[in-house]
């Protein structure tokens, strides 16, 4: 059961695209083919949010509306979804959607270029939340950059929605959209357009078969890295396998020993789950990227990309996580520590894929994580640090320390761990441990931070961690 036709809902009907160019972005499709130019191109790398669109997805018989960046999403990934553009919020009689009206009434636009993106982010917020508190509002628009109006009037507009009826066009047609979404069969998608191939398998078995036949394929989840090959380098991606169509891998489960996260679980879901166990993990995820990014990106994607500044990686390292890797015949369980070989190189071989990630549950351990970046939201780490400490009678019984942004890979600070292990929790220990980071890391100077700053901040974060533990309180200014 394969198909080369992408079916999705637009307005009140099912749209079919036969064998599309798998490298065409949804943004280009909207602007060039649909001739809807409300959605803009800004950065073309999923950073500025002016291309924000909303996709409706069936989940447990209900429609979840997700804001995404159309500039880094490819057309075939529309399969089975409802596409909502800024123009579609306006009623047929020309009256504005409550979100749009609030933006006008609160002076939320000036030059207007970022505005459609803000409107769509606020629309997704309006649909998915019943009450819009400050943190919900700020999180909802953290992936939209405005360079002239300022965020205050936009936040005012969002707040005013608390007083407005939730009944809109989409609520009115809710049942119609559900029945249309249900009509679209979830098939394996195989596209072969000129020299470009695209696969969206529906299950793991299908994925294994495709990988065996096309081992050079790129695996695509959120596309924050892979898609830029097309949008920035202007090269073709000859063979793509879309992972997020595999529902089987979209899961989080827990037993007494560990939490297991499937490879296609979006970060936004994981963030909600992990909050209870490791609040700092959830905090870092909030700053990992915007909602648009967290709606589509995955931990498996972050691991496979293996960027030295991938924000989940130092956290997973200090938590001693394992990854489950599969290919056609075998399953392997590897510790994440040692998985990263060199800059953006991992032990993952051709034909293999990350199936899931296991995060051990801690006993009495204390887990802490910090991110330093130039901007709080929607920015790349200068340094990201993570600590996993077990204390007994004021002595450090177990310790795992890992950093991002300090080497060409996310890395454990083994020398520092040696100093800390079995030492009393004293200023002397902390000072020695700080010094030992110089043995562990030789950071570089780049646009985000200088070598000196990185080392200094790495030491200070270690100090902060132990000060927090000693004083039994959080010392945070960002939250």
């Amino acid at each position: 059961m394969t198909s080369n036709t992408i079916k999705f809902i637009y307005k009140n009907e099912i749209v079919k695209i036969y064998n599309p160019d798998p490298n065409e972005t949804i943004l280009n499709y909207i602007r060039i083919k649909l001739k809807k130019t409300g959605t803009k191109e800004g950065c073309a790398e999923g950073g500025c949010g002016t291309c924000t669109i909303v996709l409706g997805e069936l989940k447990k018989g209900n429609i979840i509306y997700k804001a995404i960046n159309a500039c880094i999403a490819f057309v075939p990934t529309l399969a089975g979804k409802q596409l909502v553009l800024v123009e579609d919020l306006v009623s047929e009689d020309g009256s504005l959607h409550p979100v749009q009206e609030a933006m006008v009434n609160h002076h939320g636009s000036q030059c207007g270029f970022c505005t459609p993106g803000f409107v769509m982010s606020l629309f997704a917020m309006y649909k998915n939340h019943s009450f819009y508190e400050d943190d919900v509002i700020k999180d909802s628009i953290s992936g939209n950059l405005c360079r002239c109006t300022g965020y205050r009037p936009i936040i005012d507009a969002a707040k005013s929605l608390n007083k407005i009826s939730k009944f809109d066009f989409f609520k009115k047609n809710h049942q119609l959209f559900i029945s249309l979404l249900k009509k679209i069969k979830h098939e394996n998608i195989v596209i072969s357009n000129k020299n470009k191939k695209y696969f969206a398998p529906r299950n793991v078995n299908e994925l294994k078969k495709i990988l065996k036949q096309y081992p050079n394929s790129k695996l695509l989840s959120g596309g924050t890295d892979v898609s830029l090959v097309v949008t920035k380098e202007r090269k073709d991606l000859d063979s793509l396998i879309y992972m997020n169509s595999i529902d089987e891998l979209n899961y989080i489960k827990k037993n007494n020993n560990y939490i297991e996260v499937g490879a296609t679980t979006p970060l936004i879901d994981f963030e909600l789950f992990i909050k209870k166990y490791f609040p700092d993990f959830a905090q870092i995820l909030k700053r990992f990227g915007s909602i648009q990014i967290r709606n589509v990106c995955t931990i498996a994607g972050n691991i496979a990309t293996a960027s030295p500044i991938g924000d989940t990686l130092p956290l997973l390292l200090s938590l001693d996580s394992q990854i489950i890797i599969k290919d056609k015949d075998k399953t392997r369980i590897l510790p994440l520590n040692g998985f990263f070989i060199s800059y953006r190189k991992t032990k993952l071989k051709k034909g293999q894929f990350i199936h899931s990630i296991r995060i051990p549950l801690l006993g009495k351990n204390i887990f802490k994580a910090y991110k330093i970046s130039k901007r709080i939201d929607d920015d790349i780490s200068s340094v990201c640090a993570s600590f996993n400490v077990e204390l007994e009678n004021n002595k450090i019984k177990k310790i795992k320390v890992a950093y991002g942004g300090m080497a060409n890979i996310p890395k454990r600070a083994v020398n520092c761990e040696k100093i800390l292990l079995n030492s009393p929790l004293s200023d002397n220990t902390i000072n020695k441990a700080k010094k030992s980071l110089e043995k562990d890391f030789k950071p570089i100077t780049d646009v985000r931070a200088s070598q000196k700053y990185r080392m200094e901040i790495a030491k200070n974060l270690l100090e902060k961690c132990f000060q927090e533990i000693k004083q039994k309180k959080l010392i945070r200014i960002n939250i």
Partner: protein
Amino acid sequence: MNSNSFVMESRPHESGTKHVSGYANYIDDIIEPEGTLYGAIGYSKKAYAIIKKLDLREVWKSEGVVSVVTSADIPGRNDVGAVHDGDPIFPKKAEYFGQPLFAVAATSTELARKAVLKAKIFYKTLKPVIDIKEALRKKLFVLKGRKIKRGDPSKKINKVTDLTGAGDLFASGFIHAFVNKMGLEKALQLGTRSAAEIIKILGARPKEKLSGLL
């Protein structure tokens, strides 16, 4: 308040409705006539460098390319400085990262953008001046300095006795009343009274509280 006046009234942005509904047409949003060609610009990858050679053969060969232009194709002045010269369209020496060096016209935006990346550009990298002190030392001014002078002021003005502060005090009095929503008339009154008060004394700081003037 006069009902014909919009002062102190909250009015929506005149294009607000278009902005929020996606119907505000920016240049790139206008539906093109049939046969439109699309441009893309090739940028300097060096912040400060002499462009030794632009090898654009691969750009010409790239799919969909109809034309490629460089500084050699400019018939008149290679300068778009609106008031002063010094803003070349395509320079021989790049003076900032991302300065345009050539342009491509192709049958689609994507193809034009693809094509420009195929250029081979040979640079002779120069050492950039990036701090003010060094720029002053080397006398690297954006424009020649200018002086506007009539007569010889030093002969007329021997000693400045007082900067009255009348203008500043007018503004502060006016703004104080205006932001406190006292209305335009009161605002003007407080402005002129404050200004009148300050010129009675030496120095620009009032001795008395000016709020008493109302």
